[in-house]
């Protein structure tokens, strides 16, 4: 699956090049043209079978959370800063891959035998963690990296029956869905598939891509929060694996356009595609930037439920992936200008 190559690819915010290359190779034969803009966004175009001039953008972000190496200390340990919102509690004792050579390093963790009981209930802030690459001195370490070198979690993609596991499903699953959508075009409108950069550090790519494409409607594909594990209280799981694509009505960054939500909903019902609503109010996506471009763009986020995002290992369901592709293809095929023409 293209998801495997995308998930394994190296692509923290600001360094999405490898993902960019995979995406371009996957879509270039299915689009009329593509270009890369000044923030590294891949903006492609395929003419529609109908409604010329009616522009629809579908976006997914290429970047993942990661790290940048800042300096080495005198014992040869590497210090770093985080790129994007990583939960510090997922860091101790994990493995990372650094730079172009994918040099492995381990996040150092004090043996439990030597930690005091009251130490063990405190979270270690990331600026107190270090990465060991096996160097024995500052001089030796400094030969192995350049200042600002990027790093990502070291997690290999695997299929676990109906589920798959890998890193960066937020948002490589969105990219994978978008690649599938491109392969199944054309659509009855001018189609702009956009693979954005730097979502994790403030929706930066999406903001300029939205401005320059200025579509009449937009969909944002995400790998979203899925909190369906066991809990003490009867609380919302946000989304659940196996229940289908998640439609967002509202999150912290956008209030989805009701007409597009209705279109997705009606399509799912008509085609018998399972779907769920994402718990409103949580999280933010590229939709937050795109819907505010210029005079405003009707936008809706549609997501594949992904457990454990922003941690080293994420998990999602194959059926959710397939149903998200089905829902998107059918919804796009039904998207005509009058869906977004009149404000209700």
């Amino acid at each position, binding site marked *: 699956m293209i998801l495997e190559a995308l998930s394994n690819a190296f692509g923290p915010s600001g360094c999405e090049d490898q993902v960019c290359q995979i995406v371009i190779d996957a879509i270039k034969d299915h689009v009329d043209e593509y270009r890369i803009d000044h923030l590294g966004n891949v903006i492609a175009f395929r003419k529609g079978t109908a409604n010329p001039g009616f522009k629809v953008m579908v976006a997914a972000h290429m970047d993942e959370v990661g790290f940048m190496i800042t300096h080495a200390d005198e014992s040869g340990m590497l210090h770093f800063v985080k790129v994007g919102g990583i939960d510090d509690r997922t860091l101790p004792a994990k493995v990372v891959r650094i730079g172009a050579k994918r040099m492995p390093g381990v996040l150092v963790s004090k043996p439990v035998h030597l930690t005091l009981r009251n130490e063990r209930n405190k979270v270690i802030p990331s600026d107190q963690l270090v990465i060991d690459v096996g160097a024995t001195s500052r001089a030796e370490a400094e030969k192995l990296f350049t200042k600002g070198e990027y790093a990502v979690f070291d997690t290999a993609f695997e299929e676990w029956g109906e589920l798959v596991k890998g890193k960066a499903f937020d948002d490589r699953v969105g990219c994978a869905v978008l690649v599938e959508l491109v392969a199944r075009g054309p659509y009855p409108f001018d189609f702009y598939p956009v693979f954005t950069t730097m979502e994790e550090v403030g929706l930066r790519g999406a903001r300029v891509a939205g401005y320059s494409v200025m579509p009449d409607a937009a969909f944002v594909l995400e790998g979203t929060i899925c909190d369906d594990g066991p809990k003490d209280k009867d609380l919302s799981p946000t989304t659940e694996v196996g229940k289908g694509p998640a439609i967002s009505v*509202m999150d912290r960054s956008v209030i989805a356009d009701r007409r597009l939500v209705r279109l997705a909903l009606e399509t799912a019902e008509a085609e018998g595609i399972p779907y769920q609503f994402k718990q409103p109010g*949580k999280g933010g996506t590229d939709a937050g930037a795109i819907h505010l471009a210029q*005079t405003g763009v009707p936008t809706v986020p549609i997501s594949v439920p992904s457990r454990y995002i922003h941690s080293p290992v994420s998990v999602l369901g194959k059926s959710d992936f397939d149903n998200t592709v089905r829902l998107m293809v059918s919804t796009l095929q039904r998207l005509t200008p009058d869906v977004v023409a009149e*404000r*209700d």
Partner: protein
Amino acid sequence: MKETIRKLVETFGPSGYEHQVSALIKQEIADLADEVRTDTLGNLIALKKGDGTGKKIMLSAHMDEIGVIVSYVDEKGFLRINPIGGVRTLYEVMGRVLFEDGTVGVIGVEKLDKPDQIPPMDKLYVDVGATSRQDCPVKLGDVGCFWQPMVEVGDYLTAKAMDDRIGCAVLVQAMRDLESTPHDVYFVFSTQEEVGLRGAMTSAYGIKPDLGVAVDVTLSGDTPEPVVKMATALGKGPAIKVKDGGMLATPWVKDWMVKTAEANDIPYQLEVLVGGTTDARAIQTTQAGIPTGCLSIPCRYVHSPSETVGYQDVLNGVRLMVAMLSGPVEM
């Protein structure tokens, strides 16, 4: 003007769901504008044309109020909620929520870890009298506003959503009272201010005015032990904003507003608001920049169901707006 205010504040309209407010305002301003349209984000834009000798002015008051969205319906039919905009649980617990279809719920709270603690949002729930998920009339994604009817307390009016239906009322009344203007005036009733000034951003981009003025509430410092000391008080007139948490009013616009008030004997006060901001922040950085100011109505208990303004301040606010629009803009 009190009836207009009552109708506006008592209408349902949390951010993203302003259509009822929009419909009401469209009725109220029928025959007062040369052109009326609704844009992509639902902003209601009414243009009153001038005689061609003035500027292109955008005024903005937001139609949306803070509210809640149902995030979960539990097995017993109790609702969990997430906030829409800046909701303070302290102000809403044990109050009422009104849903779009008219269902009313009570905001209850679970036992707290510490009895004196301010309840966090996830300890709140809404009780609509259901007994199970199946018989609950409200579902995931439904939206509600906090509910109180408007009441007059002396010269004061108290209601939910004074923020910013009072601003909308000021603009509607100004449209009624404005006899002539040299300017092309865009009266924008904006959406989604409470969740990030979103309507103002996109409507200002589309209009690209020469000058912008928002009309919104501001806090007052005239109650016992206020959270932040402020010179603003009810009864001292509308406030002319110098600075708030998100922007500094363009000095010459602020000065022009002051001169206009003084020339027309309208009481006013100068305002520095420490926390909070308005549509003016979004308008000011549109495209290559727009000179922008803000006319504020002092308000007690902002973001509670009992927002309280002084009626005379509102009337003087209308007078100031009309005076500003009636003559040339002094740069």
